[in-house]
């Protein structure tokens, strides 16, 4: 028993769980034909069958029941009233994903056979049209009644929490942002607030808004599909599930005092100390590798960082344009391609920074605290 818990505590650590996620994600949601073939060879499309769903949700439920019945910490975190939405999320998101993919694969098969998607109905055929009264109104009425019932039952069963009165002199540990912002708080581990709290949220909003103007693929409009929009779906799901939802779950269940990581079966110990000896790229470059003192001149000191960041934002797009993303430049044109690739690289910056931290203990690529410019 304790052995199982110990293993789970270890593998949920972001260094392992995120690496696992990264390794399997693009095989489960293949962005190109090569990975799609690998996906089919491994039989991963079976995930989206009824059996796949039953096995997945069965395992998830067994895990939850095991955790809640056998472990105090797990039970406290899972049953906290404000965590209910995230427990819901654990079930709803995979379920809806399954709903999408199942219908998507079915439609893909129809397209291969030159059939119209399942959703299609002939606009001229009056029989395929239905009247809003009563058919839609019934659906809406049922949905409305169901939701009201759910909310009322939820409200009767769980009291809205109220903690001690506000006290600006006494900060709780950990003090967590509301759950839907935990992704931002998690980014604070790897980036300074000006990036994690201001620039990235802006880029997320702008990036979401830009989707319809960047994605010029005409196919897959108005029905579920996968094969026709592999890359779009893969990228979007990576950002939304792989980063955002993952970080919300991590932040809710696995981040304790001092924002340290705690496994699902690990007691939240305020005194847990993690030795942090993070260093900046400048120190790594001049002191560790070059064996000399840090230069006085700020610009010279941070030169390695400027080179790396500059290369990432300026040379990388050009490089990608010549290689992996070549077809995109032709399809999108230069302006769209530039916006697309900058957004893509910003998204990739998070996992990259995570791994730089885990492997090299890297704190900042560019560190100019004098001007609050740390990257």
């Amino acid at each position, binding site marked *: 028993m304790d052995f199982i818990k110990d293993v789970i505590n270890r593998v949920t650590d972001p260094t392992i769980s995120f690496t696992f996620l990264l390794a399997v994600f693009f095989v489960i949601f293949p962005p190109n034909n090569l990975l799609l073939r690998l996906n089919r060879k491994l039989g991963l499309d079976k995930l989206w069958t009824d059996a796949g769903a039953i096995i997945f949700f069965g395992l998830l439920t067994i895990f939850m029941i095991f955790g809640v019945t056998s472990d105090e910490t797990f039970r406290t975190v899972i049953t906290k009233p404000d965590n209910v939405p995230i427990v819901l*999320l654990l079930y709803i998101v995979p379920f809806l994903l399954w*709903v999408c993919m199942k219908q998507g694969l079915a439609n893909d098969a129809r397209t291969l056979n030159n059939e119209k998607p399942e959703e299609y109905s002939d606009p001229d055929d009056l029989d395929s049209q239905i009247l809003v009264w009563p058919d839609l109104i019934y659906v809406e009425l049922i949905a409305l009644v169901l939701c009201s019932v759910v909310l009322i039952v939820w409200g009767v069963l769980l009291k809205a929490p109220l903690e001690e009165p*506000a006290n600006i002199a006494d900060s709780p540990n950990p003090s967590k942002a509301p759950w839907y912002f935990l992704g931002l708080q998690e980014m604070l581990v790897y980036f300074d607030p000006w990036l994690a709290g*201001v620039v990235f949220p802006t880029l997320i909003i702008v990036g979401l808004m830009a989707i319809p103007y960047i994605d010029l693929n005409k196919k897959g409009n108005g029905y579920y599909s996968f094969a026709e929009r592999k890359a779009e*779906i893969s990228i979007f799901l990576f950002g939304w599930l792989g980063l955002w939802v993952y970080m919300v779950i991590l932040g809710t269940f696995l981040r304790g005092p001092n924002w340290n990581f705690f496994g699902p079966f690990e007691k939240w110990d305020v005194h847990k100390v993690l030795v942090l000896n993070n260093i900046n790229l400048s120190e790594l470059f001049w002191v560790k590798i070059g064996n000399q003192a840090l230069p006085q001149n700020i610009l010279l000191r941070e030169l390695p960082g400027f080179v790396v960041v500059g290369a990432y934002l300026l040379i990388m797009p050009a490089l990608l344009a010549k290689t992996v993303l070549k077809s995109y430049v032709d399809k999108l044109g230069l302006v769209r391609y530039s916006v697309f690739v900058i957004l893509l690289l910003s998204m990739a910056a998070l996992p990259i920074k995570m791994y730089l931290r885990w492997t090299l203990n890297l704190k900042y690529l560019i560190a100019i605290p004098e001007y*609050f410019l740390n990257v």
Partner: protein
Amino acid sequence: MRKRQAKRPGIFQQIGQSVGNNVIVRSIFRTGGLPVNWDRRQRMMGVLNNVFLHLHPVRLPKHAVKVKYTWCMGGLSFFTFLVLTITGILLMFYYRPTAEHAYMDMVDIGEQVPLGIMREIHRWGAHLMVLSVWLHMFRVFMTGSYKPPREFNWVVGVILLTLTLLLSFTGYLLPWDQLAIWAITVGTNMGRASPFLGYEGPGATLMQIGDVKLVHPAADAAFVLKAGRFVGEATLLRFYVLHCIGLPFIIMIFMAVHFWRVRKDGGISGPT
């Protein structure tokens, strides 16, 4: 349908029919008759004649009403918004946004107010709204419904998502307990780091005319959010006004545009 009309109406249907055709009822519901007896024309008129129902078209392709297509998530987002408006108004009767009263009013709402589950419904409803808006976005993406001609409505949707999060965030402070004040402290402190606009942000030192600093701890983005250097009573009032009036007002405008555009862009998306 035709068969049913040919049958002689039963006693309840006769009563219903005469209620439906009563002068007063007729003056309120323009279509008249008993809805279960409506023929095709009346069914269409019933939708067109009603200001609420006419948000809908009268006819739809079959797939558009299937739960497995839309998951009802847009509708659920709107429904939770309505629930939040109603319970929010009720809560406003009992809640005073001052450092002196806010917390105790919260306690009283739970303990003294009869049928006191308004706060619960408001709070869980807020969670549900954030969740359903996310999932709605997820659905819209997965059916490719942001593609032409619906690009702009997707943009409006992203604005709605942002506003939903802001609504939830401003409401988070109002209970005035430890959870509230510290979550908002963590959140608003990020404003200090805004490039150029926060006093700890990159470029802030450039915002200077001669010797006069334009951005400093008492004049920066975080200060504007908090109406002070720390989260305090002024912050509470600011968040209260935004939460109860400012943001709901703005989100309703964008919702109106959103619904209008769903119709104008050709109704629910579908394959052609």
